[in-house]
């Protein structure tokens, strides 16, 4: 995992810290870390606050003759969504999503792309205004990069905003396999009136990892098994850390196959930008849920308030892990003696769902219901007060008055008198 020092080195303009050709540690590099996302505040050396990619990293670069040089390596990676589910994915520089590219409007960038896959690929710089021949569309703007070859994309960043990159060669499969990343371009002129203290990059995706399998199924169009933020599912998604009163920006890109209404608890955020760049303040709007369309990005900004606030897709199936889509509804069905009879024929059978699905996590957590190999239970996660019964595109924004570096502050303790509590009876005159 990248540390703060590496991040600053990699992000600081003019600091030649990363040797070109410093490639991923291994083609099978693991991305199993589920640690807190390192927060980085703006420094005097930078005109912007470096972006933080939870569960990921920012790609280092070096300066050569005034050009920022990056190196992306397309390759197979061993990826873990959460403990218990690993797959053979494809990504960049050992991870999915690939490392975040970060630059400043007006920069000249030179991006080396090495193809270590067994099939051709390209990189399309999604939403960037650039010369036709740099757009990375196989067969249209260039010949696809054959396996084993390295090609260069070079262009000047004429815009700012939250962008993405992904293959445009065998695109359906390569994206389904996890090849994508964020490309953040900071404006050359910073908005001094709304200085960002914390800047996070989240990339949404969906995966068809059928129960018991180890490789994504690219042919699936709707019934996906896993819904991820930065290719992780809850509870393995690193929380976003901030301090009370800080201005936080959450950049969300969507390269999945569905739109995602991303809902944030605890605040009304401003929608301040997109892949079209940072919007004029007059165009900002207050929201608590913002739909991030397929192929779109949105910047959500807010002032942090103490608490552990969920940030999640509001399509409730997207906050679940693998689940059946054609199950009979068992709610309200008392199987009674029938359950015993079925168990007699199929030892281990247990009637489920008579009173809802909440019991599912209890059974799973108790460890007496074994599931298929390499498959996450539909719901999970333990909070301070019990099971959270979540999965998929769900994470937390943990805000404290004072953070201890990047360490997880633990569970938020509601101040006295600010938490829901139990009553013995409800006054009769309360209308219902």
């Amino acid at each position, binding site marked *: 995992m990248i540390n703060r020092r590496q991040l600053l080195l990699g992000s600081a303009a003019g600091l030649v810290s990363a040797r070109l050709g410093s490639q991923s540690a291994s083609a099978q590099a693991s991305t199993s870390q589920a640690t807190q996302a390192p927060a980085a505040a703006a420094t005097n050396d930078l005109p912007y606050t470096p972006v933080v990619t939870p569960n990921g990293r920012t790609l280092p670069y070096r300066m050569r003759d005034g050009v920022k040089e990056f190196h992306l390596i397309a390759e197979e990676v061993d990826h873990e969504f959460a403990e218990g589910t690993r797959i053979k994915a494809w990504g960049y520089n050992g991870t999915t999503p690939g490392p975040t590219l970060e630059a400043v409007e007006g920069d000249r960038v030179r991006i080396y792309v090495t193809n270590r896959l067994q099939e051709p690929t390209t990189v399309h710089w999604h939403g960037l205004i650039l010369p036709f021949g740099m757009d990375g569309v196989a067969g249209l703007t260039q010949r696809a990069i054959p396996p084993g070859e390295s090609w260069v994309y070079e262009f000047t960043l004429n815009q700012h905003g939250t962008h993405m990159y992904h293959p445009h060669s065998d695109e359906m499969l390569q994206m389904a396999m996890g090849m994508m990343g964020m490309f953040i371009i900071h404006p050359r002129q910073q908005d001094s009136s709304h200085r960002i203290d914390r800047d996070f990059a989240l990339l949404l995706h969906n995966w068809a990892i059928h*129960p*018991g399998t180890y490789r994504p199924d690219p042919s699936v169009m709707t019934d996906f098994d896993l819904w991820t933020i930065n290719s992780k599912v809850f509870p393995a998604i690193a929380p976003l850390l901030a301090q009370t009163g800080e201005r936080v920006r959450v950049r969300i890109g969507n390269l999945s196959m569905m739109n995602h209404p991303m809902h944030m608890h605890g605040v009304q955020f401003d929608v301040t930008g997109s892949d079209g760049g940072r919007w004029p303040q007059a165009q900002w709007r207050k929201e608590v849920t913002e739909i991030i369309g397929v192929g779109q990005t949105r910047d959500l900004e807010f002032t942090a308030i103490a608490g552990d606030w969920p940030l999640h897709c509001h399509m409730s199936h997207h906050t679940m892990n*693998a*689940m*059946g889509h*054609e*199950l*009979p*509804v*068992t*709610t*309200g*069905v*008392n*199987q009674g003696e*029938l359950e015993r*009879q*079925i*168990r007699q*024929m*199929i*030892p*281990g*059978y*247990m*009637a*489920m*769902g008579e009173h809802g*699905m909440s019991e*599912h996590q209890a*059974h*799973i957590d108790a460890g*007496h*219901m*074994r*599931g*298929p190999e390499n*498959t996450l*239970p*539909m719901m999970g996660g333990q909070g301070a007060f019990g099971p959270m019964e979540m999965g998929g595109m769900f994470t937390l924004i943990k805000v404290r008055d004072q953070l201890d570096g990047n360490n997880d502050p633990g569970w938020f303790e509601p101040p006295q008198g600010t938490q829901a509590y139990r009553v013995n009876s409800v006054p009769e005159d309360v209308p219902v």
Partner: protein
Amino acid sequence: MPFKALALFLVLPALVSCGTTGTNLLSQDSQFDDMRQTLQQWSPALNSNNLEPAAQPPDDASLRLHNPAQAQALALRQSPAIRSILASQGIADADYRQATLIQNPGFSASALRAEGSDSWKTEFSLTLGILDWLTLPMRRQLAGAEHAQARSRAFQLLTDELGEVRSVYFAAVAARHISQQHQQTAEAARLNAELAARLSEAGNLSELERLHYEDVSARQRQAWQQAQAEADASMAALKRGLGLDIAAPLEIPDQLPDIADSALSAGALRTLLQDSEQFAMLLTRTTSQRPDVRFLRDNRSALERQLQLQRKQLGMSDIGVGLITEREPDGSRASGFELDLSLLVFDRGQHQRASTRAHQAQLSADEAALELAITYQLQTSLNNLLSLTEQATQLRDEDIPRQQRMLALTLQEYNFMLTGPFELIEAKQQELDTVLRYINTLESYWLEHAWLMQYTANTADIFIASLDSSAPPPGPAMNPTPRAADTHQEHHHD
């Protein structure tokens, strides 16, 4: 006593397949010494003196037959059809004795009185068939050959009858086994239908879907009822074959023996089918033991003797010599000899001998045709057995475990709400269907096995087993083999 000896001769080969006879039975008649030695060499169980497994039970207890050998032993004791076959040998025995006797001498007396005379003329004669005397050894041989024919015919009938008992026994066990499997399948379908009904009552399932599960359940229930009826019919057929009263209580195993309990391993069968010398040896043994072949050979032998007799008779049906004495009315006496024969003018017996020779030729052709048929039938049966062995082995060792694994994995998916309870129960039904296919294959196997044993006069299993030292000893062990029916389930309840 000839009848008893014959009965033993007929019964013993059948008991070889059972391995349940005793030495006391084998030592009753020296004319079966060669067979006794062969049988004891083939089946050590012949010395175990355990003929009584199917002994008559106490009045209040059910008769228990643990294997087909016991069924055959009981049939020997009870079956009217078998008693009839054995009784027919009493007739053959008597005919044989009769045929070996010399014709009684003839005696005649006459008295004549001349008209008006007081005196009588008397005449006495004593005659004896010379030809009968002369051909007695030949006639005895002929009678012996005809007796052997009758014995072979009876042996054929008895073998068929006992083979039929063996087949009917396996069919009855299989029908019970199949019925039980249908019961489980019907129960699984019932559980699905009941679950559908509960879901429908809760408003979670449409009537159309509920009726679908109900319909499947109804059809499975009908299949079970039919299987039950077939099991009852099979049991009735077995009782009839055993000669039992239809109301007599009878218990048989619930499950067919596993293929591994057969002496005919796949390796041995394959060897036999690929090695022409071994196959020829089995063929020789089969033809030497099959009653119909022996019948034809005995028949040919009898015809040969008949031909020899016809030659010795020189076409004469009879030659008689006699002693004659006369008393004339005047009191004088005259005595002398008499010769009585037919003159070979027209019928010299040539067509009779030609007919006998034609019969001989016909029998030779029949024997060749039969041996050819046996060759093909034997090969076909061995092929069938090998195929059934491989099918059953695959079902037992691969298909059923695969279905069990699929059920376990489906349960895991059910646990994680990836699949529903209907699919889980259907996975169980798939497993049950596979077990049913296994049972059907086992039934086909054991019926084919029974047929082969009958067809080869109980020589096949001993011979084929000798080709595979690892095979279990020949004999119809009836140990139910739960391996195929065993299920390995993951228990999720603490």
